[in-house]
């Protein structure tokens, strides 16, 4: 069965899940965040035309609001993200296309699709797109390229070395165009651009794995900020350990877990030598030998992440780990046995259904 052609999906009705604000007690700030309050990523969304424009009052039946659409003119509400108040009025108006979220008396609109908005301290996965004299420009899925100054990376030969002109000349030996890296947002500029740093042993160039970009926030799917964005997990079917990096910006890296020299020698060596040794592999672009079992499980994990996104589920450690276990069990039942790693189309929906318990 090399090809499956399905009839087009009909639009699914959006469940009306918001109650009218008037008859909800004010302590209800938890209900909206727990629901995967988003529209389908693929289906069409029924839009309801506001018939009575004269007395708009935060209509709870509206599935979706569009930019410029009046949300409410009731002064008891405060405006949140994704809304604005036009000059000379008191109307809260949507500035993005999305669903309305309400936290106590705060109204905000969650965009259906949005680019990543950097915040200080976010863990991001980025790709170098430009090399300049003293800095790199990094694509992090934001509206602008983030910048990574040469002074914000760990130079080989010890963390505390001073940056020299030789380093500037050899800037491409650290990161070249196309290289993937994991970094942290260090600073935000006035215009929303971000400055990154990799001054930690956790950060740096990525290798031994695959990259997958999922859309960030919106629609209920995508990567959400959580306590742990990087973890190492045990894989099934005789594979080694696998590292997963979920960038807050929706870029995901799945790779074979490599014992860094630090981890190996931590047992024998003191902390002072650790930094010198870790820098040995820091800017390598050579993959370690990876056995096919590990590769297969990496593909399976990648399939889990894409299946989660395609079915509008959030992507975090809990969901990915549970999804992976579910996928391993699904493969056991499959006709091709545990080697079957395909999780697209219907298999993905099956996986999502198993995870949400529907």
């Amino acid at each position, binding site marked *: *069965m*090399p*090809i*499956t*052609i*399905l*009839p*087009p*999906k009909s639009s699914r009705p959006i469940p009306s899940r918001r109650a009218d604000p008037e008859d909800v007690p004010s302590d209800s700030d938890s209900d909206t965040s727990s629901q995967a309050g988003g529209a389908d990523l693929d289906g069409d969304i029924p839009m309801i035309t506001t018939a009575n424009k004269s007395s708009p009052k935060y209509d709870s039946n509206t599935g979706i609001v569009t930019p410029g659409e009046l949300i409410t003119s009731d002064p008891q509400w405060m405006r949140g993200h994704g809304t604005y108040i036009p000059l000379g009025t008191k109307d809260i108006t949507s500035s993005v296309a999305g669903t309305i979220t309400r936290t106590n008396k705060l109204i905000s609109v969650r965009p259906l699709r949005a680019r990543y908005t950097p915040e200080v301290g976010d863990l991001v996965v980025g*790709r170098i*797109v430009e090399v300049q004299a003293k800095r790199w420009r990094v694509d992090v899925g934001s509206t602008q390229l983030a910048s990574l100054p040469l002074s914000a990376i760990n130079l*080989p*030969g010890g963390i505390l070395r001073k940056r020299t002109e*030789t380093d500037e*000349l*050899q800037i*491409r*030996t*650290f990161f*070249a*165009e*196309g*290289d*993937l890296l994991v970094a942290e947002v260090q600073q935000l500029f006035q215009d929303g651009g971000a400055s990154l740093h990799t001054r930690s042993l956790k950060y740096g*160039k*990525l*290798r*031994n*794995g*695959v*990259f*997958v970009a999922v859309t960030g926030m919106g629609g209920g799917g995508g990567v959400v900020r959580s306590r742990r964005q990087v973890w190492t997990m045990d894989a099934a079917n005789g594979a080694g350990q696998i590292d997963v990096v979920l960038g807050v910006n929706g870029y995901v890296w799945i790779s074979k877990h490599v014992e860094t020299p630090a981890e190996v020698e931590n047992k024998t060596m003191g902390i002072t030598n650790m930094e*010198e*040794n870790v*820098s*040995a*592999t*820091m*800017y*390598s*672009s*050579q*993959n*370690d*030998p*990876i056995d*096919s079992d590990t*590769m*297969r499980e990496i*593909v399976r994990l*990648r*399939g889990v992440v*894409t299946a989660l996104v*395609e079915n509008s589920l959030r992507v975090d450690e809990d969901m990915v780990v549970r999804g992976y276990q579910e996928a391993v069990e699904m493969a056991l039942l499959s006709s091709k046995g545990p080697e079957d*790693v*395909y*999780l*697209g*189309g*219907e298999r993905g929906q099956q996986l999502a259904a198993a995870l949400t318990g529907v």
Partner: protein
Amino acid sequence: MASQQHVLLSPAELAYLHDSLSLTPPLRPDGRSPTQYRPLSAETGILPGTNGSARICFADGTEAIVGVKAEVEKTRRKWDDDTIYDENKEETREEAEGAEGSSDWVELTVEIPGFRDDDSSTVFLAAMLSEALLADGGFVRRLVINRRFHWKVYLDILLISPPLSYPLPLLSLTTHLALLSTRLPRLKSEGDEDPFFDDDWAAAPYLYPRSSNKKVLARPPVTLLVMAVGNNIIFDPAKEELAVADVALAVSVGDVSSSSSSSSSEGEEDVDMTAEEQEGRKLRLLSIRTVDPPSRLTPPGVPNATNSAYGHAQVGEGGKTKQQMPEARAAESEAVEGVWKPPRGGAKALVMAALVQKTLQRGGVADEVFDALEGVDLG
């Protein structure tokens, strides 16, 4: 011809992808089997203003729409053709049926968002698609009205989403479905007089005729994108897979009945088709084009042994010489395990032969693609 804009992937990613695709069986990043297509949804007859239209949507969000429009055009007479039409009607009838079409009766335009319509990649895509359609002359023969007039067909192929992967298979499948759903008004006039059509759209016959049980008798060609990594042959590659391809081919395959049955009458076609159904579909290779994979333009990886940023602790023992020319060193190197090296040179003849054979063999991919396309509701 470059297949796509430059794909930005790091050498480590490329090396990993190449390694996993070279395994036996290959491990594709999305877990598909080597011959498996991405799941897609298809519908036809979506544009009321066209003679035929179709839409196909891949699960990753790439979407294409094709509209077919037809108009009557006067056929240019050949320079040596001095027949007088009215006098020998019998003869003209025969000739009209065996008449050859001309390839400029079909105008095919491809539009890819973000690309100019005279961009070389867009023009190349259009050329490949029209080449498949015109290769055996079977399609243009259907457009003959009589000796003086023919249908001129405009095929507008639009990719609606940004090109997330090389769109050739998607555009080809959508064009296929659009042509299958194409209807032309029923001709009322006879012989070589000025054409006069029935204005009842419900009576309009399909360009590709169908039998009484709605079975399509002949089918337009399909172009498949096939690539090879090492000795593995992979169908419908995604963008990142194409980025490590050793060789990529666009193989156009036609259903052989589509050319043979076009000049025969309705009754005979039915008989032909049932005979063919029993022995399976006869596939015919229409054209092969090599597509230049973006892998050739990717930067090579730097092995640890020559990386000046690697193992700085050891630089003391003779690292001085290494430091001097960092850029020159990255240019060329021997193949090292785990380091990306862009493919050089042409494809192996054996691999090329296997590519074509795997596409064409009975029960092969082309066969199954035709089977799946038959399942689409043509409305």
